[in-house]
């Protein structure tokens, strides 16, 4: 028989890191070698309970294990949050198209992300940093609701800010006592002064409303629609462009995405819903 595309491979959760009150990172070790490209997604099965799509947050260069950062948002993610180390899981994929890193070479990379949207961004960021000299610079404009809600705090508040070639700014919607940084939505820290827009690509990931306003801002800066990469969240289920749940216009987000250029999808009415 042909290979069964619905069959997951087995894996185990070997570590769980609390990132924020609602977000955890699960370290998953697959039984078999499992390679992916940054931006692609996997279907993670909690056996007997359900399956949900996630973009791994670790670098694809790490081939023995994979980090999956998950926000408690629905039934399956709620159950995953109750899991302990040693939990067996199933993995299908990887699916779809990731970021076309080869096309990013020699350019400014303008990353705008918010909330749990930092998860796929971490995978991309680590990939870019591995070969940082290949890019003009990596600009990151990252937001969270409160300082507590930032994920990857240890890296974000320290080491990542000091990497040569990286220009990182953070913002929160609501500050707490210790926060010394910017307060406001992520677009309030976006500026275009040190970036040659004609030689830049933008990458956006986050809640729909944030993606919408970030995209508008980037267009205002002069980014061409074809140079704005959006990581779309839809209800991906089969992962192979058949079941229909993730359709966005003529596209199956699972197969043709999840990374799209704004140019590809801008004419559909429901992209931000």
């Amino acid at each position: 028989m042909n290979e069964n595309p619905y069959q997951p491979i087995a894996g185990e959760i070997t570590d769980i890191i609390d990132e924020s009150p609602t977000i955890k990172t699960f370290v998953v070790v697959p039984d078999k070698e499992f390679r992916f490209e940054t931006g692609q997604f996997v279907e993670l099965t909690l056996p007997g309970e359900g399956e949900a799509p996630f973009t791994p947050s670790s670098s694809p260069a790490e081939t023995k294990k994979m980090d999956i950062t998950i926000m408690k948002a629905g039934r399956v993610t709620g159950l995953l949050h109750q899991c302990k180390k040693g939990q067996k899981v199933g993995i299908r994929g990887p699916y779809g198209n990731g970021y076309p890193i080869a096309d990013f070479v020699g350019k400014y990379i303008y990353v705008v992300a918010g909330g749990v949207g930092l998860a796929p961004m971490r995978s991309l960021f680590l990939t870019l940093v591995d070969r940082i000299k290949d890019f003009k610079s990596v600009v990151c404009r990252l937001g969270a609701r409160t300082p507590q809600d930032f994920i990857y705090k240890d890296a974000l508040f320290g080491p990542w800010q000091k990497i040569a070639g990286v220009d990182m700014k953070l913002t929160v919607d609501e500050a707490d006592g210790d926060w010394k940084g910017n307060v406001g939505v992520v677009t309030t820290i976006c500026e275009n002064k040190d970036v040659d827009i004609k030689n830049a690509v933008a990458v956006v990931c986050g809640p729909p409303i944030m993606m919408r306003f970030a995209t508008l801002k980037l267009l205002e800066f002069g980014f061409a629609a074809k140079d704005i990469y959006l990581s779309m969240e839809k209800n991906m289920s089969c992962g192979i462009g058949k079941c229909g749940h993730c359709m966005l216009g003529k596209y199956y987000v699972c197969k043709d995405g999840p990374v799209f250029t704004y140019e590809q999808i801008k004419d559909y009415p429901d992209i931000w819903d």
Partner: protein
Amino acid sequence: MEAVFISKLRPFLDAVAEEMELYVPKKSGDYYIFNRYDPAAEVAAEVNNIRACTPVKEFLFPLRELAAVFPETVEPEDVKPFAIFGLKDCDLRSMEILDKVFAEEEFKDPFYLKRRENMFIISSDCSDPGESCFCSAFDGRPYASSGFDLNVAKVRDGFVIEVGSEKGKEFVEKHSQLFTEVPGTLLSERDENRSETQKQLEQKNAELEFDTPLKEIVENSQESEVFDVEAKNCVECQACTRICPTCHCFYLYDTRQKDYFAKMKMWDSCMRQAYAEVAGGANPRKVLGDRIKHRLMHKFVYFLDRYGIDMCVGCGRCIDGCAGEMNIRTVLKKLSEELKDRGKKKSKVTK
């Protein structure tokens, strides 16, 4: 193509049933459904004048099936050869559409393929198309030209059986004692019947011959209010998608069995409210009118863009099945008129 003649159906169907599971059309109320053939039945199966109510997808992609077992991999259940008698041209074309999805190069669905390979297709001519039939609008015909193993056409004193494949040829050769040569006059009778029925269909659906390609009509209806108006009569029963031979959305879900976990695959419907909803609650098609629009866009625009054919064969099952009396033909006509009106307004402005 090669054809043979047989005066009665029963010996032919008996021969098929001896070799494989055979399903035949059986009248149930106003419609035909497929039932397992019973050689002992007093009344032999008849040629259905119109497509059955059952969409052929039921045989290839059942309502619910096992898709995977975890952690051990299991082979899907063994599919034995089976035959269906009484499929129509629209049914065969619906399989062509399903093949695009489930047999495409990149990701093949092994369960679908296994059933497809084991299926023996005996189609038949439509003698009296139903009120809801509109296959002629999609280049469909009341008789099959390809995609079958054998095709049966009722003529005076018997049946003309046409061979459409190697499998069909083997069958006819193996059972050559059942068949005789087709008298030439019967072939022309069959062809006359065919063009007569075709004419009827075309006359009935003359209103669906639009000046503008259907794709353009539907593609330009993003802003149309027609969908919200239609939504007022829709009770969201999902019958249209279940009964549609080309709708193929499904849902994967996990279950816990006694000693293993299973991933199941079950029909789903884009008409369901939470169909496209994500865990956080975002839903691109919360509004019913938007779901009706998406379904038509998928059928007449998106599928065409991707696979080069419409995802509708004009079988009219959705018209028969709709509890809210929505008629896809009326919707398409309304959209066509809207587009024409908009065109007129535009040309006035430019003048």
